[in-house]
Structure formats: C-alpha cells, structure tokens
C-alpha cells in the first residue's frame, strides 16, 4: 500500500538517530517508536521538516497491550485434559483486573499510535509511544501540532483512560454522560458493568449491575503456523543448500 521510497526508514533513522527507541519496516509500512519525552518534538519535526512534511495526522488511537499474545485455550494440552471448548478461558477482554495475566509479553501496557500522511511526498508513517506509568498513563498532547488530534485524543482518553497532557478540552467523547471506567481496556468486561433501563415506578432511567453472563462461543487460540514463520523456512532452505550431496530433490 505504502508508496514509501526504500530510503524512508533510513532517512528517518538517520535524522532522529538516538531519539528513536526502534524503527521497523514491515509490509511496506514504517513504524517508529519514541519515548514520551520526545513525543511532541519528534512530531513537530516530522511535520515541519521539508524532507518529511507529514502535514496530516490521519489517525490516533490508544492500544492496551495487556494480555498480548495470550490465548484462552492451550490446544497442545487439550487432548490430555479432556474435552474443553475453552469457554472458561480468560483471554483479553474476559478477565477482570484481579485475574489479569501477570507475566506480560510487553513491559508497558498503554500505547498511543498515530498514523501520519504526507500529501506532498505521498508517504505514510506510524509512530508509537508507550505511556510510562500503567496506573496513570500520561502522554503529551499533539493538538498543537495537528489540530485533528483533538477528538482522537478525547476518544483515546475516553476508551483507554490515557491522559493527554496539554489537551485543551479533555472530556469524554463516545461514552455516556457520567460513564465510569474506560471500556476499551482489556480488563473491562465486554458485557460492561451496568445495565440501564427505564423504571416506571421511579419515573426515570436507572442503572443496575449487569445481570447477563458473558458467553464465549469461539475461544481465543494462538496457533504456531509454520507457514508464516519465514525464518524457519529460510533456515531450512539454507540448511538444504549448505548440506553437501543434497540437491534438494532426494
């Protein structure tokens, strides 16, 4: 999709150097990761520097990496343990805070991901920063750099509880007035915490604890699919090529 010149990743890597925690180029899309302290400065330079000229912030969203890579159903052990459809599993979105997976694959939980577009150079870029504190994730606001960040940051605040420092008007956006919690966090149950109905006796709308049970039809499964493990395929091909007397069609 991206029309990035092959040098885009190098260009950015050269320019920002140490300030990037990581830079990857996969599927033709460049992703850079910066720390919270550099977040605004890097963004501003990406916008103003002529060789990048990312004039547009296309998208900003929060990501909660809690439970990344964890599955509800270990298929290797399932045959020994008898039948199970994984319905009792605790995958992302189904555990509560007390049941959250302890050993995380990632160090930090909340990230803000932005997608930039340079109309001038016809390029895209993805930039990510992890909020340092899981308990109170704070990330500097980008509203001054790109005005379109305004609502996107309000949305990320609403859904993930990420606080954008310097945002002029950080109110909830999508959820109900007076909503409690941040629904897109992985430890927020899919069915929610409260139900709402109109009470004819009281003559008003009332909130009550949710009654329904969460029901899972398809467990979350992570499968090691060798087709996608290109490293293994490459290694096998190399091994075949390296071993003498084996021309690959024995």
């Amino acid at each position, binding site marked *: *999709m*991206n*029309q990035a010149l092959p040098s885009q990743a190098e260009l950015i890597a050269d320019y920002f150097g140490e300030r990037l925690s990581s830079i990857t180029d*996969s*599927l033709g*899309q460049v*992703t850079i990761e910066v720390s919270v302290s550099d977040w605004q400065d890097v963004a501003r330079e990406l916008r103003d520097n002529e060789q990048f000229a990312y*004039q*547009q*912030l*296309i*998208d900003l*969203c929060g*990501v*909660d990496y809690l439970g*990344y*890579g964890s*599955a509800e159903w270990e298929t290797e052990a399932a045959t020994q343990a008898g039948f199970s459809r994984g319905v009792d599993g605790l*995958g*992302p*979105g*189904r555990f509560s805070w007390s049941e959250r997976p302890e050993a995380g694959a990632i160090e930090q939980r909340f990230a803000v*991901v932005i*997608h930039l577009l340079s*109309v001038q150079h*016809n390029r*895209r870029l*993805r930039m990510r920063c992890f909020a340092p504190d899981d308990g109170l994730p704070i990330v500097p606001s980008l509203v001054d750099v*790109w*005005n*379109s960040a*305004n*609502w*996107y940051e309000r*949305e990320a605040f609403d859904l993930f509880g990420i606080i954008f420092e310097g945002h002029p008007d950080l109110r*909830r*956006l*999508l*959820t*109900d007035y007076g909503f409690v919690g941040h*629904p*897109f966090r992985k430890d927020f149950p*899919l069915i929610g915490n409260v139900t709402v109905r109109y009470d004819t006796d009281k003559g008003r709308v009332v909130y009550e604890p949710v009654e329904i049970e969460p029901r*899972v039809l*398809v*467990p*979350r*499964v*992570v*499968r090691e*699919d060798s*087709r*996608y493990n290109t490293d293994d395929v490459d290694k096998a091909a190399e091994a075949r090529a390296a071993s003498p007397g084996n021309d690959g069609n024995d």
Partner: protein
Amino acid sequence: MAEIRNYTMNLGPQHPAAHGVLRLVLEMDGETVVRADPHVGLLHRGTEKLAESKPFNQSIGYMDRLDYVSMMCNEHAYVRAIEQLLGIEPPVRAQFIRTLFDEITRILNHLMWIGSNGLDLGAMTLFLYAFRERELLVDCYEAVSGARMHATYYRPGGVYRDLPEQMPKHKESRWTKDKDLKRANEWREGSMLDFIEAFAKDFPSKVDEYETLLTDNRIWKQRTVGIGVVSPERALQMGFSGPMLRGSGIAWDVRKKQPYAMYREVDFDIPIGKNGDSYDRYLVRVEEMRQSAHIIRQCVDWLRANPGHVMLKNFKVIPPSREEMKDDMEALIHHFKLFTEGYCVPAGETYAAVEHPKGEFGCYLVSDGANKPFRVHLRAPGFAHLSSMHEMAKGHMLADVVAIIGTQDIVFGEIDR
C-alpha cells in the same frame, strides 16, 4: 436595561437535519453561532471491542454497519488489512469486482448525500430522484449478496460469490403490472453485468437531471456558496480527506496516489474544488458520481471478458465449497476448523486505507497471532470532519449549521463506531 447574554441551544439528538443522532450544543449570539460543541457517541456500539472478541471473519458484518450508506467500502478496508497481514492477494477478477462495487457504493453514498443535503436545504424533489436511482443499486447489492444493505460480500481472499448470471426481475403485483412491469424489467433481461452497464450508461443523464435542479439554482447557491469555507492548510491540519479535502483544492485521492484493488488499471479523474466552500464540495461530489459511472463501465467490460475465480483456493483461510466439503475428508476438516475456530493471522500490525466515498477510511489492525484480532481501530473520515464543526460553523447563522452538517456528509454509524 437587562444584560444580553448568549443563548445556548440544543440541536438534536432528535432532529431531522442532524443526520442521525448528533447532539449539537450551540452557543448563539442572536442568530449567529459563537460556539458549536458536538456531542457524539449516542450510536456508540463498541464495534472495535466487539471485533476483538470474535474470529476475524465474523466482524466483516459489523463493518457494513459502520457507515451504513457505503457498506462495501468499509468492508474493503477491514478485509484488506487482514489480507495484508496474511500475505494473500485475491484473484484479479475479485479485485475488479471489488473496484466495481466500491464505485457502486460511492454512487449510493453520494445519492444519499445529495438527496438528504437537498432535503436539508429545502430541495425536496431531489431526494425522490436520488432514491429512484439508489433503488437500482441496492438491487445490485441484493443480487450479489442477498442483502440490500449489509452485504458482508467481501471476504479475505476475494469476494463471496461470483456475479449472478441472471439479474432478478420484478414480479407482477397490483402496483407493478403490464407497461410498468415491462419498464421495470427492461434492463433485467440479461445478466447482472448487463444491468449494471445499462445503469452506468444511463446514469450520467440522471446526474444531469440533478444538476438542472441544483447547480444554477438560486436558492441552492445562496445556501451553499461561501458557507463553511476551509482553506487547504486548515483542511490538512484538521485531518480532512476525500471530497472535503478535494473541495479545498488538494488533489489527494487514495485511489490514485496509493492504488489498491484494480484502480491502477482503470481510467478516471479526480475533481477538485477551488474555494473550499459547500458549493465546491457539492460540485466535487457530483463529478465523482460521473467518474464512478465511468469506472463502472470499464470494470464491466473487463469482467465480461475475463471469467475466473473470485476467491483464492487456500483452505487455511478460505472455506472449501460445499461440494468439495462433502467429497473430500481434508476439505471437511478445513471447513470444520474454519467455522469453529477461524484462522490465525500472523502477529503484526498494519494500516489499510481505502478511498471511501466520504474520505479516507482506514483500518489499523494489530494481531498477536490469534484467531481474533488483538486490536482493531477504524479510522472514520466523518470523525475528523465533524470534529471541525466548531471551526466551520463559527460566525455562521443557525440555518447554515444545517448546511455544514450536510456538506460534511455525516453518518453516525462510522463516527460513533
């Protein structure tokens, strides 16, 4: 003398011009808008979170329900994101069908827009005309997918079925018979491609009819010229895309600049505006309808000449056909696994964007290797457009706010998600 204070008023959420469930809190100075504060989220269904709890394919249907007047384009972004992560490429015929239906969808959307925007600004007739043509296009949706709106037609690896050989005909009823019936079925004698071609050939003349009603209409111009002017710089700053960006004079179109599906193969122009006002955006959208008809004709020609598969034959992702499933053990196993568990998508992240009728519709997909997405974020064009409401409406009269909502082409399914 009593002190004169600004008046705060609510527009919506139940208001015919609010295009759904927009609650707009307006601070007025007389009849002039001082501050506009849209309250959104009344249609928030948590689509992104729901998608996290389901196998990949089961969320395609949710995409239709985002922007419910341009259904297949939403699907296209999501399906493309999955395909990118899986590293699969659908057959060329499927890509042409997608191009064809993306453009049908564009016309559907713009017809809805021109009709409702006309209605908002007092041009009632147009609404009826636009829906006359819209009906034919939703018939195409129905013919390929069985559903008039929420098609779930695009799948990772292609489209669900090939185009039907026969376009369904109207049956005789108390209201449609004899001459009327004959006229209604005039284009439906042949295949679906014949029907679409007849439509696409005829459609520019219909666009002329709309233009007769509006383009030089004095009232229409009074209501749109100079209303909601956005400079190109501000349009970029505020994250505009699609006709909103092109109306401000920036020639940016994902179909042209970062082509997907078969847009590389078809010929079309992208119209741009000059002044960045509502009238220019109207002209841009009208021209886009003509261009879409042009693209549709090219796709029809290609599709007629090149029969073939519309789905990949990769049982790890795409279910085998019913016949194969009943005949072949391995196909049965694949069928079972795909429908009980789905397929696992390799870990990674991607952003797939399509030129949706309203602007850039993007899908940011994060997978951790499971059979369900880890995170889906949908970049809705209307979200960025509506967030600029204050800037666009400030200083305008109350009635112009309606014109601005109309010109932004707001649909709440995608904004609230």
